[in-house]
């Protein structure tokens, strides 16, 4: 019998009107990597919030047994004292502070009225080496990349003397190489005896790193898979998550009808918005045809978003040069309005930050990009607006009590649908979808894919930027591979595989 470090027994947590967790059980052994998977809203985060004391003892039913004793955490500090540290999905670092200051934020070294900076930075450096960072702890957070920031978060957890490390979607904003490095680090920690819980949507990563997988669905534990007894395939995990076998993760298009070139850029070069001498897009030439799904693959930071946003009315970048053709005619788009008028839509990767007004209802968000479509002489026809919002709610099967519901209260998948609705209502011919399925669950993903297929069937062009290789391969007709601001490969969907794409990226990186 292995050593049980943590047991959560019959945890039930209710919010007004909803049972978020229903008799959830979780057992974590010492020294293992335990993965927690489930669709969005299944209750993973709620469970971790119960564990860390964000929901204090007494606001839930059930017991938490940690190192053999029953724990009653009233605040985060209580659980941290025991060595339970959560690293949240959104990084909680202050960009203008140094790595060292961030690591000891709220846990300052030295005396109350005199921080011992030497000790702070000395200790910080030690932990940074442990996570494989060579930066000085006096570097500002804003000067290091997202991947390294994630590692700083882990170093910060180590500095808190973590014995149970909980990582909530640690790789969601990392590129493949950084993700891989992070997973290796987790395995390294395991060797040293660290216990970790990882929450992730990326099933391939979980299959790679986890010893056990607990599947949560609709607030209940469904099953716990053990590496030694079960085989960890993505299909097997998905089966547990959705409760049925997903035979086809990508809907097939019945007929392809690919026409003329709809949009083309030639020798497109974009400089960084702040560091203006840095090229983020370097001499890119590409095109997309009518009725085509064009995939753009590449690592995070390859310049894909920058390429898309610079095409979309110069909404990103500095000193943009090159030619842009729409339906064979050269155009110059100076702002977003002009891009929309030329029937281009850009669906952002950051739906909460750049896409939606969370405090406003679905109705308002749906019409925002095309207010003239529901108004005359600057006066909005609210009845028409409601009709439009209802129409798209039905078309995209958005789950919501009414179109007057605030978008902030919807799940990620439904928010994404509202964002798509907004841009579909702008009636574009060319849609650029930037990470259209990031952070949404398997079921909603499938629905988004169906929408994409409907769009191209209706003669639109879709440019899909995605970091998930299976998605790019499953959905695209043609694929561009981008790396370091350049296009390093153009592949037909039929010939493309994950290995070929990664190979192109690696070859291009070495070419320097």
């Amino acid at each position, binding site marked *: 019998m292995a050593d049980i470090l943590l047991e959560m027994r019959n945890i039930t947590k209710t919010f007004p009107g909803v049972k978020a967790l229903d008799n959830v059980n979780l057992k974590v052994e010492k020294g293992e990597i335990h993965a927690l998977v489930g669709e969005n809203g299944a209750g993973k985060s709620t469970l971790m919030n119960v564990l860390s004391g964000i929901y204090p003892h007494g606001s839930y039913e059930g017991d938490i047994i940690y190192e053999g004793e029953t724990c009653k955490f009233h605040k985060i500090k209580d659980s941290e004292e025991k060595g339970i540290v959560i690293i949240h999905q959104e990084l909680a670092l202050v960009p203008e502070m140094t790595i060292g200051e961030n690591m000891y934020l709220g846990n300052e070294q030295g005396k109350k009225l005199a921080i011992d900076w030497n000790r702070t930075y000395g200790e910080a450096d030690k932990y940074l080496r442990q996570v494989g960072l060579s930066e000085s702890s006096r570097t500002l957070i804003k000067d290091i990349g997202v991947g390294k920031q994630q590692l700083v978060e882990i170093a910060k957890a180590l500095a808190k003397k973590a014995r149970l490390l909980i990582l909530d979607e640690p790789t969601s904003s990392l590129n493949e190489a950084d993700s891989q490095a992070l997973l290796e680090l987790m395995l390294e920690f395991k060797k040293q005896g660290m216990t970790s819980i990882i929450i992730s949507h990326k099933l391939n990563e979980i299959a790679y790193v986890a010893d056990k997988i607990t599947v949560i669905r609709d607030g209940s534990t469904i099953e716990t898979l053990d590496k030694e007894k079960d085989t960890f395939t993505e299909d097997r995990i998905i089966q547990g998550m959705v409760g049925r076998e997903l035979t086809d993760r990508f809907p097939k298009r019945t007929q392809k009808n690919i026409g003329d070139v709809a949009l083309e850029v030639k020798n497109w070069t974009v400089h960084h918005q702040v560091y203006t001498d840095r090229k983020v897009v370097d001499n890119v030439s590409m095109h997309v045809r009518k009725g085509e799904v064009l995939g753009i693959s590449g690592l995070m930071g390859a310049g894909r978003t920058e390429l898309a946003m610079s095409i979309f009315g110069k909404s990103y970048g500095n000193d943009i040069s090159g030619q842009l053709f729409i339906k064979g005619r050269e155009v110059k788009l100076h702002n977003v309005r002009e891009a929309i008028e030329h029937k281009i839509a850009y669906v952002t990767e950051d739906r909460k930050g*750049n896409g939606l007004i969370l405090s406003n209802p679905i109705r308002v968000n749906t019409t925002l990009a095309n207010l003239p479509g529901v108004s005359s002489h600057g006066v909005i026809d609210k009845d028409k607006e409601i009709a439009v919002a209802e129409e798209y709610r039905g078309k995209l099967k958005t789950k919501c009590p009414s179109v007057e519901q605030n978008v902030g209260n919807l799940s990620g998948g439904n928010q994404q649908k509202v964002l798509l609705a907004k841009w579909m209502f702008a009636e574009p011919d060319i849609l650029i979808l930037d990470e259209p399925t990031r952070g949404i669950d398997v079921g909603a993903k499938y629905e988004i894919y169906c929408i994409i297929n409907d769009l191209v069937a209706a003669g639109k062009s879709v440019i899909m930027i995605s970091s998930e290789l299976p998605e790019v391969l499953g959905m695209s007709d043609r694929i561009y591979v981008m790396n370091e601001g350049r296009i390093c490969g153009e592949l037909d969907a039929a010939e493309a595989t994950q290995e070929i794409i990664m190979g192109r990226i690696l070859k291009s990186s070495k070419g320097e």
Partner: protein
Amino acid sequence: MEKANVSAFLKKYTMVIVLIIVTLFFTWKTGGRMLLPQNVNNLISQNAYVFILATGMLLCILTGGNIDLSVGSIVCIVGAVGATCMVNLKMNIFASILIMLATGLVIGIWQGFWIAYRRIPPFIVTLAGMLMFRGLSNIVLDGYTIAPMPEKYLMLFNSYIIDFFHGDGLNITCLLVGILAAAVFIIITFRGRRAKVKKGYAVTPLGSDIMKCAVIGLAIMLLMWRLAQYKGIPNILLWITVIVLIYGYITSKTTVGRHLYAIGGNEKAAQLSGINTNKVYFIAYANMGLLAAVAAMVTIARLSSASPTAGESYEMDAIGSCFIGGASAYGGSGTIPGVIIGATLMGVINLGMSIMGVDANWQKVVKGAVLLAAVIFDVESKKRAK
């Protein structure tokens, strides 16, 4: 279900209920003097500038909790310019009014330019404006007060609409206007409701619509009844009504209004939806200058003078009214009717305490506490909603 309806209703109309309670409280404390016809009349004429400034201030606050600190000083300098034109230069009063409006608008454009197109924080630009225009008005006035204003000018703001029916001790025109206004409001509400039902859209519960009509109809009638017992409808009420209706329409029904809310809700998303965010900021602040000029016109008419200290702390009254009226300190939410309630509440507290003879310094303490309480309430109830 019933319970949920009641609590939703209470939440939506909290400030209305507070206003009613506060009014009743002062009526009781002043032995009924609070609601004497003359005091009701004073409530309107004393607070006219607050209604006008708060309307403009709401547009600025909607863009993201941005305030305009310079409005008091703009009121002062526009008043100084107007008084100079009318009294010292003996210019035609309508030409003078145009000059005043132009002055306000130019100042608004000046500040709007820096805020919108150069992205200088509004707090800084308007703080600078507050100092600069206060100083400039002293220079224009040379430190003196100009008085009195021409009779014809005062007539525009300070007189009353004549009673066409010559009622005895009761202004019949005033009453008729009240009945008409209440009827129009009720008809509009129920027409909108019927249209919605016809098209199959969700409607608010009938009870809440009836309640709304009853409360507002009653409020209009009571107000007009009281005014009719005094001298009838003050001209200034017309000015306020027109401005409030125009801006109420702009914020709730037009694309410009929608843009204001969108920017306050999520500026980045608004920008990527093709909204020219710079232009929206510019419009909000340019408009604030224009409305400050209107407030200046009202102010010099009421005091019949333009002095170097006119308009002091007016910005605080306007900002306070917006926040008490439920505008979010982060932008993106708030309505004109809410602001009207907020301004009225401030006015009632002012008037009530003045009648009671409360020390002016204590009045400030109370007003400050009310403002703080209103915003705390707003923030807390939003937290609970989550």
